[in-house]
């Protein structure tokens, strides 16, 4: 579990025309908190996640995890990618134990945990299958299991359910809620789906269009444990209306600055 602090983080890509992707982002994430970064596609929210993961460096500002500067990517920050990014040449089991193996953890220390994680995501019987044999939702469950096996301090999820059909997505959201309520890991969850953000998160950060900034932070006080039944409650609708208004104004702002 980890505390994440971003201070004046900015990112500029120096291509032929310099592109400012992120502009002075301030964000404090408490230990065990579930934060959703909500914004339109291409707004730079993935860039922010990549900085947290260590895949990219910030151009300005500081990004800290538990008080220390975020460095190279590592198993303390488990990343779940949009398209799962499993190794297609490894079986489900080999994918799940890849992390501990790379870190030189003795087999006896991770085998039980890996088996338990596979059971948690409901893929006990698919350990010897290859990713090509799985559906999109199953692949993403492997992607989650292989990260949880490493017992990361923070979970970074980049639109992990964005490519799934509506029904599978809901099942995955419920699964994530169950798992998270058990483990209480810090989660940063990038999405462009308002329902998803409200359903999962303790706090929704609405991001403005490029260059992205955090426009508003909206704490979600819905009681836990939550389920997809919450999607239809009046409180949920109220949050949704508030966030939609926020996103619309952010969108308008972006259009006037662009014009």
């Amino acid at each position, binding site marked *: 579990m980890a505390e994440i602090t971003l201070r004046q983080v900015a990112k500029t890509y120096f291509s032929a025309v310099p592109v400012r992707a992120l502009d002075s982002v301030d964000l404090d994430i408490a230990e065990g908190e579930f934060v959703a970064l909500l914004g339109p596609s291409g707004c730079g929210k993935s860039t922010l996640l990549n900085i947290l993961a260590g895949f990219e460096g910030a151009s300005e500002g500081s990004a800290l995890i538990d008080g220390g500067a975020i460095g190279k990517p590592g198993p303390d920050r488990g990343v779940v990618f949009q398209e799962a*990014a499993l*190794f297609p*040449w490894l079986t489900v089991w080999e994918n799940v134990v890849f992390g501990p193996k790379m*870190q030189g953890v003795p087999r006896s220390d991770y085998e039980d945990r890996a088996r338990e994680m596979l059971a948690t995501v409901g893929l006990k019987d698919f350990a010897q299958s290859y990713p090509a044999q799985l559906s999109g939702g199953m692949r993403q469950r492997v992607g989650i299991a292989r990260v949880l096996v490493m017992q990361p301090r923070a979970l970074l999820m980049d639109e992990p359910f964005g490519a799934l059909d509506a029904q599978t997505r809901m099942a995955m959201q419920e699964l994530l809620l169950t798992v998270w309520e058990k483990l209480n890991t810090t989660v940063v969850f990038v999405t462009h789906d308002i329902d998803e953000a409200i359903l999962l998160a303790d706090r929704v950060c609405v991001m403005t269009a490029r260059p992205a900034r955090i426009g508003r932070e909206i704490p979600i006080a819905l009681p836990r444990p939550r389920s997809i039944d919450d999607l239809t409650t009046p409180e949920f609708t109220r949050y949704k209306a508030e966030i939609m208004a926020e996103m619309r104004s952010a969108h308008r702002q972006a259009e006037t600055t662009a014009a």
Partner: protein
Amino acid sequence: MTDTSVKQAGSRPAGMAAPGSRALGSTLPRILVNSGLAQIVLALILPVAIVAIWQLAGTNGSLFGGVLPTPDRVVSAWWIWAFGPKGMGLNPYSGTWLANVIFSTQRVAQGFLVAILVGVPAGIWIGWSRLGAQILDPTVQMLRPIPITAWLPFSLAVFGISGFSAIFLIALGAFYPIVINTTQGARHVERNLVRAALMMGAGRFDILRRVVLPAALPSIFTGLRIGLGIGWTAVIVSEMIAVKSGLGYVLWDAYYVGRMDVVIADMVSIGVMGLLSDQLILLAERWALSWRLAGAR
């Protein structure tokens, strides 16, 4: 340009069936076309017809005034070459077929192995590391336009009349397609796979061995198949000139003494060996890339 043509090929208008599945009026021809036995029969029509015409066109066992032997003469020449008694009688080729096949095959195998051992790591390095590309790629690209046949005198001067000469040419010829295809594969590894491995704590060498290499494997096999074909070309060319054994040596020697029946039997032998070794690579590919076929099973 290529984009649109690919799209057009992919999205065939409704009503137009793929060439293989086109309705042939009734279902009977389609069953015939699709069954395994029928495919073999269809494949054999053309070669059998050519051999038959070739046989019937000859008189007294030859065509074109004695230049080209008919198939029956070729078969009997091969029979003696393969199973005849060894010794320096009237027929110096008698009973030497297997030995020559083994000589050539061994050289191809050795040269090919060298090409793999050098070409795959070099290709991974060029495709993966910018430094590798800057150091190695210009040299490879500069040497590549020199045909392997042009290396023959060089090879002869350095290695003399020996098997090494052939192995050098085979290795060189097979090296280029292997290194180039491996480079392609290593260059186009999905970025998120590398990121995932980094995130899980993989080191530089782990990334190369466990991500880049397997990701490049399909391209590597493409290179291996092309390389092996060039290897067979190289072994024949070099045995014709730089070595005194093997199928290439017999080919040229038989031509000089006017034994066209042995020449043709030799050509067929080369073709069969090339086909068999290609099948071997295909088998290895199917085994190594079984994860790709898993979805289809």
